[in-house]
Structure formats: C-alpha cells, structure tokens
C-alpha cells in the first residue's frame, strides 16, 4: 500500500498494520476530514446566512451591521452566472447611459498618441532640471582650456605671469587679483610681451618697460584690474586707449605674428624675448602662491602641494610644467628596444606589447581556424 493511500484510509485502525505503516496521531488529525461546524468558516462571506454574517450581526446587535457588504473578493463563479441571467436592477440601467454619453463626448477629439512628441507634459515644473540653463549652471574653467606642454607656450605663460605679478607688486595691489582676467586682449598682451624682466631679485623693481607709454598703459590697466566692480568698464577704456596708441606706433612692434593666428594660444607668439624671468625667486609665500596660481591658470598645469613646496624659483616651476621634475617613467620595453646589444642578436625579439595567447595562436596558424569556426557558428 502506498503511503499516500495509507494516509487517506484513516478510518482503519492503525493497529492492524505493521510498524512500517504507522502514522502519528498529529498527522492523522491533520489529514482527517474537518467536522461540519468547522467547515462553515470556509464558506463564502457574502452568503447572507453564513456563519460570519450571523456572528457579525450578533456582535453589532443589529440586523444591518456596518462594514462592507463583501470584503472578501466579490461573488463566486456560480453566483455571477446566476446574476447575469437575472434582469439588472432599474437604477443601474438608468445611470449607465449618462456615463456613456459623457465618454462619447470626450472621445470625439481623442486621438491616440503614437509617440511622446507634442504630448502635454504632466507634473510640476518647479524642479531644477525643468528650468532653462541659467548663468550659474554653465561651467567655466579657471584655467585655460588647452594644457600647454611645449617649451614656447610655457615660457610665454611664465613670462606673462611674472610681468603681471611684478606690475601688481609695483602698483601695490592684491597679487591674486590678476587671475580675474584669464586672457588679455591682444594689444595688452603685446605690451606684456614687450616687457623685460631684470633678474635683480626683487619683484617690485624687476620689470623693465620698452617705453613710457607702455608703462603708463599697463599701470592704468592693472589699476583697474585690482578694483573689482569697475573692471569691465575699465577694460574697455583701456582697450580704446591702447588701440589709439597702437595705431600710432604700429611699426614699432618687431615680430608681430600673422593676423590669422587670433585663435592660437598667446596670439601666435612662439617664444619669449628674454629669459630673465626664470631667475626670479619664489621665496615669499604670498608671491609664490599668486605666481603659481596665475601660471597654473595660463598654462593649465596643476601644482600639487609637495611640488609647490619644492619650487623656489620661476625656473623650477617652468621645469615642472615641462615635465622635467618628475618625468613619466620609461617602460622597460623602451629601454630594451634601445639596447644595441640586444637588437643585434637575431634570436631575440623585443615587443612593446605583452604577447598574449592570441599572438601565439596567430603565429602558430591556429587563429584563422578559430575565427573560421566562430564565423561558421555565427559568433563573429
């Protein structure tokens, strides 16, 4: 006898079976059919005369106890079937047509959308990303967009920063305010380019102007830069002034670059005229900070703190930007590829990339077989 059948046949006393057919009393109790009184609870609650309904009436003390008519999921299948055959109630029949009319009225202009385009946007528009882009949202880099790595542009940036810091020293203005103007106009840059720096060890007296007019103009401009609110207006006036002077002494500028190089960094200038700025000291902390900030802004190079600690002259700052202070470590393959003794050996081959299984498969002729098999299976 199979165990399932044994469990079903509970009326038979278990004593007559062997010990292997033993069923414990708990299991026997579980599997036994429930008494009829207990089965009443399983009946549907919507039954008007159900036990739960009678209990509810008894609890509330009325014939119409409060609460939903049917809290347990509606009618059963048979009830639904019977209720469909019976004629619907009058009230519901009266209500239905009105709703249908309303629906047809609204449906007349309804066109189902196929795409989202043109649909009315639902939801509140007060979020940040619903607003159009404001001025505060646009990112402008502190430094120039292109990072300079060549010697010429770096020297130009270092020279410009040195001239500006010298000017601010001479004018006795806050040094870091030179960073307010990232790039000067071309006439102003031309004048800065013309200036020379005498390495006498002092920032305030190091600057050497080509002529008096340049000195006055630059002093005027950088006076304006120090005064924050009036800066834009001052720039304009300075430009006008400079342009006027530029027109007068047009022939004086020796190596004016071509006019099509307006977009080029430093207006197309290739290298500095003199290199006196390289020996300027960076011992004063304020000057050093201001200079490195301006140089970092013009060159696009970031100076980490340990490097900033090491730097004591302008020359070192330029050297760091050129990558001389901490050079990128050379790869071993590059060293080996330069070794003439190894290159002369015919049984040694030097590769700049690691040789993988794919290379080995290729040189053993296995790769084309693998590829053909992958292609045949549509995997490649």
């Amino acid at each position: 006898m199979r165990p399932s059948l044994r469990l079903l046949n509970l009326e038979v006393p278990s004593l007559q079976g062997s010990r292997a057919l033993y069923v414990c009393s708990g299991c026997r109790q579980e599997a036994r059919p429930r008494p009829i009184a207990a089965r009443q609870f399983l009946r549907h609650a919507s039954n008007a005369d159900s036990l739960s309904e009678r209990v509810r009436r008894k609890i509330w003390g009325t014939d119409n106890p409060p609460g939903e008519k049917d809290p347990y999921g509606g009618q059963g299948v048979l009830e639904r079937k019977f209720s469909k055959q019976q004629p619907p109630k009058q009230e519901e029949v009266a209500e239905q047509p009105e709703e249908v009319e309303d629906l047809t009225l609204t449906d007349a202009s309804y066109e189902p959308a196929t795409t989202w385009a043109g649909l009315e946007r639902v939801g509140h528009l007060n979020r940040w990303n619903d607003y159009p882009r404001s001025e505060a949202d646009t990112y402008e880099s502190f430094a120039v967009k292109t990072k300079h790595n060549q010697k010429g542009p770096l020297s130009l940036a270092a020279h410009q920063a040195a001239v500006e810091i010298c000017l601010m020293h001479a004018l006795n203005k806050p040094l870091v305010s030179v960073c307010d103007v990232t790039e000067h106009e071309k006439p102003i840059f031309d004048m800065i380019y013309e200036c020379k720096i005498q390495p006498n060890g002092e920032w305030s007296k190091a600057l050497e102007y080509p002529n008096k007019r340049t000195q006055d103009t630059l002093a005027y401009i950088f006076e304006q830069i120090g005064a924050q609110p009036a800066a834009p207006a001052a720039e304009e006036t300075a430009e006008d002034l400079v342009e006027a002077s530029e027109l007068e002494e047009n022939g004086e500028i020796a190596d004016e670059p071509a006019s099509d190089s307006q977009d080029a960094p430093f207006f197309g200038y290739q290298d500095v005229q003199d290199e006196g700025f390289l020996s300027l000291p960076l011992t004063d902390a304020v000057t050093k900070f201001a200079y490195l900030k301006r140089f970092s802004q013009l060159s696009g190079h970031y100076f980490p703190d340990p490097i900033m600690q090491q730097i004591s002259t302008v020359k070192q700052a330029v050297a760091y930007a050129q990558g001389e202070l901490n050079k990128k470590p050379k790869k071993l393959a590059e060293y080996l590829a330069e070794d003439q003794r190894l290159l002369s050996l015919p049984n040694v081959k030097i590769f700049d990339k690691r040789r993988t299984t794919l290379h080995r498969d290729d040189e053993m002729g296995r790769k084309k077989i693998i590829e053909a098999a992958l292609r045949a299976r549509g995997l490649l």
Partner: protein
Amino acid sequence: MKRLQLQRWSGSVLSAQARTGGRLQQRLYTAIRHQSTASPAAPAGHDQLIREQPQAPSIRPSRPSQSRYNLPSPPVEAARESAKLASLHARLYLPSRLPLETLARSLVDASADPDPNFNNESLATLGHDLLTQYTSEYLVCTYPRLPLTVVFAAMYAYVGPKTLAAMAKEWGVESVAAPGGEVDPGYLQFRRLPPGAEVNPELITGTERPHEEETHWRKSVTSRVVYDNEYGDPVKAGVPPSELPEREAKNNNLGVSHEQASSTFVHALMGAVYLHAGRPAAKRFFEQHFLSRHLNISDLFNFSSPARDLARLCARENFDAPVARIISETGRKSRSPVFVVGIYSGADKLGEGAGASLLEARFRACVASLKGWYLYSPLNVRVPSSMEEEGAAPWKPVHVDLGEVII
C-alpha cells in the same frame, strides 16, 4: 669540379632567376622512384617527359602583412624577422653559410605549400639520398659481414623516419597547428592528417614487386634489395611523370603525419647543408648528429637455429666442423646449475656461453660465435665517399664479406 656540382644542384633550390635551365625539374622525376633503384642521373631522353611547368615568379612580391593570410607559407623576407629560426640555426650549430631563408624553406612541407619553389621537397630528395648513402657505406664498411636483415634494421635505426622525427623533436622543432602565410617561419609547417586517418596501412599495394598479391609467397632478402626501400620495407612504385599532376592533386587533399613531416625536414636540412656549406660540412653534420647516436648492433640479431647456421658457416669458410665442449660446470644436480660451453673449430675456440642447461649454454655459445663472426670490424675504416675529398690517399678496396649463410 666540386664547385660545379654545387652550382648544378643549387639551381633547384635557389631562385629561378639564378637558374641556368629547366633541367633540374628532374626533381619531380626523382622524388618518387620510377625505377627499382633511385637513379641520381636520369637519362637525357626523359627530359621531354617532364611536364612543362609554368615559370612561377621566383620571389613573391612583398605584400603587406594583412595579405599574408592568403599565402600558403610565410614569405621569404619573414625568415629574417623570426627569432625561432635564428635560435634553431644557432642551436644546431649550422654553418653560417646556410642562410636563414633556406632553413625556413626546409621547414615547409609539400603538404603546406605545393609550390616546388617554396617547399622542401627538392632539398629532402637530396638530403635523403645523402643520408642513405653515408649511412649505408658506413655500415657496410664498418661491419663488412653483417647479414642484410641487420643492415636493414641498422639503416632504419640510424636514418629511419622514427629516428629522424625524434631528432627533430630533440632539436626543439615545433610544428604549427595549420600552415599559412602568417605563421612564424621557425615552425615546422605541414598539413595534418584528418582525424581518424590511417597512418600506417598494413598492406602496401602498388609496388614494383611481381606477384605482390601472393602474400604467402616467400620474399627473399635479396629481392628486398631490389624491390623494397633502404629499410627493406615495401614501397610504392614510382609513377611516370605524365601522371604526376593527378597524383599530386590527389595527395594535396590529404595531410601528412607529424613523423613524416619531421623526417622530411631533417632530410631537407641535410640537403640544405650540403648545398650551401659543401660536402665537408655535410659530412660533419652527418657525423655529429647521426653517427654520434649510439646503436648497439649486436642487439639487432635474431637467430632461430644458431648451431645449424654455425655449422653451415664453418663449412662455407672451410673451417673444421664446430664442436661444443663443456669448459666448466657447477651444481649439475642442484636447483641452479651453470654450464659454460665453448664452441671449438679444431683447436680454435669460436665462442663460449653460459647457461642453466647444456642446451642453453650451447645455444648461447653458438650465438656468441656467430656474432663474433658477423660483427667483425676492420681497423681504420675508410668509406668510399672519403675519396671525394681533395688530396685523399689512394683508395684501397675495403673488405666486404659474402654476408650471411643461406640455408
């Protein structure tokens, strides 16, 4: 004269531009034996039988590496870039006059590249003939009384395909998975047999031997010299050159076994050394790599009735009939007796042997006597090819015995 020979041979290996004429297309003729013995110089009348080959460009135009996949074997210029090839050259201590390009070519089997200008078939033909010649003259001159079956076995042991494949493996020659233009030229390139193909067919048909279908007929050892190959194994008959294209087309679809490709490579390397570095270098290469392998020839004998053989031998050589005498014995009645038996021909003792019974001791003594006769080796052996050297001493004919007794 030596130079002239080199020039003639090298034409088939070097580019067609340096070739003087199409005569050395005979390679196709001699690669598969047409006659019962491989004749190195085919008659001049056979020249017109050789099919006219379209003159392929000798050096393939250099193409970018992308199209190397289209080539059947690596291009010539790839040989200089391969570190494996240079390593193999140095490891084998090959002469510097043997260029890497030829070494690379000797690694290309005919199943990988059917173009005879780029595969090692011609080199292998030359190397095979050189190897068998050097080995056979060494064996015959060193052991002039060896039975022919032992000579066959020794030849197989020295330059047989199994030995050559083992040598190629010891040299560190690896093989490609599939041949192609992109593979490293330092690999042995051949098309492999399809899985499940039969490597060693039991019965070779289509030989030169008459009545080969009569398998139960006795095959004499002498007939094996005539009809079979240098190892005494049956070999397929050569085909006339007019039928070569169909046969090659049929063979191209099949691959070759690794053993066969390796032995072809060793043959080709021998031929390449001979061509580029000359005969002395080839002989040195042969001595260093082939003769230096130790082979105990006395293990190759297999006697069924040594007493009868010895009696016939003594009769043939007009010795007194051999007599077995007990030299000493111990423990005749014990569990492990030892008898020492000597074979005497008149007053001369031919050999002696020890055994646990009188018969066994006599058997061993007969075997020792026969081996003592057959393994005779003269002092100061000179082989005939030593006469090819300039300034060689006058040739004194070597002693070659009648061989084994035939019963």
